[in-house]
């Protein structure tokens, strides 16, 4: 019996894989919950810290007074200008800002990828797909888009939170262009973290907890660098640098993820 098998081009394979992944990401509640959290979080942070700004708490044992310092400016939730950036600072405004989301990426990527393996859906994918490259590229792109939406959600939440809390929107020396460039740089850094977290998820497969733990540890190592690389007064150099770094990490760790999927059992 004569059997005919058509050649399956890389473009066709990647396009169908991307469609599946986007379909999955946008038809499950998880992405919307994550984006919702990212939208609400800055509103709560800005409103609550403004309400508590200047309030004094006294330690009953030592008698030491602590004055609560809130945000002076809405854009502090996005970043600080390079001259004021202190990566080692552990204050409320330096910790409770958009950079927290780099830890959230670990959760989004970890859950999204592990779900494929836990549900057994990965078997359906890999039975009809011999090339793991399609999967790696598609998942990286989809997770990047999902995480970018989380960052945009946080940005919108910051603007709303600032308006509700009555905080100034003074961009200072950064200017509007600086804020835009800062956000773009942060999106470039998202690619770095997505590449890293996907490699962890590919190694952990169905073990969501393992993927999240590995990603969180890796994120902690890079976390201190993020405010320095993506200050509020970022320029085009920062944006290009972050996207180039993101591209290198995604390609490099994508190759590692590809090798992991090729050389290890998928079930």
């Amino acid at each position, binding site marked *: *019996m004569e*059997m005919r*098998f*058509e*050649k*399956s081009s890389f473009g*066709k*394979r990647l*396009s*169908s*894989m991307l*469609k*599946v992944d986007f*379909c*999955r990401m946008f*038809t499950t509640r998880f992405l919307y919950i994550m984006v919702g959290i990212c939208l609400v979080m800055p509103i709560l942070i800005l409103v609550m810290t403004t309400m508590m700004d200047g309030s004094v708490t006294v330690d009953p044992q030592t008698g030491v007074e602590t004055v609560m310092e809130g945000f002076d400016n809405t854009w502090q939730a996005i970043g600080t200008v390079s001259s004021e950036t202190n990566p080692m600072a552990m204050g409320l405004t330096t910790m409770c800002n958009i950079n927290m989301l780099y830890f959230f990426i670990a959760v989004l990527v970890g859950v999204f990828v592990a779900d494929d393996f836990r*549900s*057994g*859906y*990965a*078997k*359906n*994918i*890999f*039975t*009809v*797909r*011999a*090339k793991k490259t399609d999967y790696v590229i598609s998942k990286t792109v989809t997770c990047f888009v999902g995480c970018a939406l989380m960052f945009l959600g946080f940005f919108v939440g910051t603007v709303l939170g600032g308006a509700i809390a009555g905080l100034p929107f003074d961009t200072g020396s950064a200017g509007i262009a600086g804020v835009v460039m800062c956000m773009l740089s942060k999106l470039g850094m998202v690619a770095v973290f997505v590449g890293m977290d996907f490699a962890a998820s590919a190694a952990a497969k169905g073990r969501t907890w393992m993927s999240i733990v590995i990603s969180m540890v890796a994120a902690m190592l890079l976390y201190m660098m993020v405010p320095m690389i993506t200050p509020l007064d970022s320029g085009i150099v920062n944006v290009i640098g972050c996207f180039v770094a993101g591209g290198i990490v995604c390609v490099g760790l994508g190759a590692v993820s590809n090798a992991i999927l*090729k*050389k*290890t*059992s*998928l*079930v």
Partner: protein
Amino acid sequence: MNAIEIRGLSKSFRGLYAVDNLNMTVPVGAIYGFIGENGSGKSTTEKLICGHLVPDKGSIKLFDRPYTDAGVRVRVGALIENTGCFPNSSVWDNLMMQAINLGLSDRAGEIDRVLNIVRMEDSARIKFKSCSLGMKQRIGIAMALLGDSALLILDEPINGLDAEGMKMMREILVDITQQYGCTVLISSHILGELEKIATHYGIIRQGKMIQELSAKDLEGRAKVFTSVKTQHMQGAFGFLRQKFSDVRAEDGYIRIYDVDDTEGIVGLLMQNGFPVREIKKNKIGLEEYYIELMSKKEA
């Protein structure tokens, strides 16, 4: 051309060989019954064919091409262990996801076609988690059939099904091979059911293929025998042993092997004062053949 051709395939887990130098040949268009006890390496072999596991050594060819060929793999469908469906999505949505994954153009039409084959046209909108076991198995087959599958690999698809479900599954599998020219590799412990549809068999033990044979070969090797019950079993047993070469007392019957002339036996027994209470013709089926083969290997 063979649909599956495996040579010297091995896979070990922590030093223990689950599949050990296995050779296997599945002709195109066959329903290949893959038989073996629990842990004999059936599922591991199927996972290796589907690319879910990485072999230690050996070669796997599908339709004369390496099993990693993207063109051939897109026409392989599998149902191994579970369907891989998302429980909160509907049957339709799950199938749609796989149809997109396969890059099909007329996705809705294709889903209708496979739902029709597995007799589930009316259940497309039901959530997967609300489906019964039989329905889930049929959805798994529908998913495997999407996109003009040339090879179906089914791991225990009839386990846990009731008689009605088994019958329906049997009809579906026969339909698939006859109408769509699809080759089916099916593993099952329910040998009686497998015997009704399989055209070829592969018997695996401890990761090694111990025998491959066609249904015709099995037919040729299968023994016929006549089972008799009389009023004086002991006397009749002694008498028949003098007359025939292979007479055994089994399961409350006297069994005369390689003889199916019931009328002749009844006449002989009646003439010699052994009134017959029950007599029937039997044939050793796949199950008995398998058990006998296994016990020989054990010995």
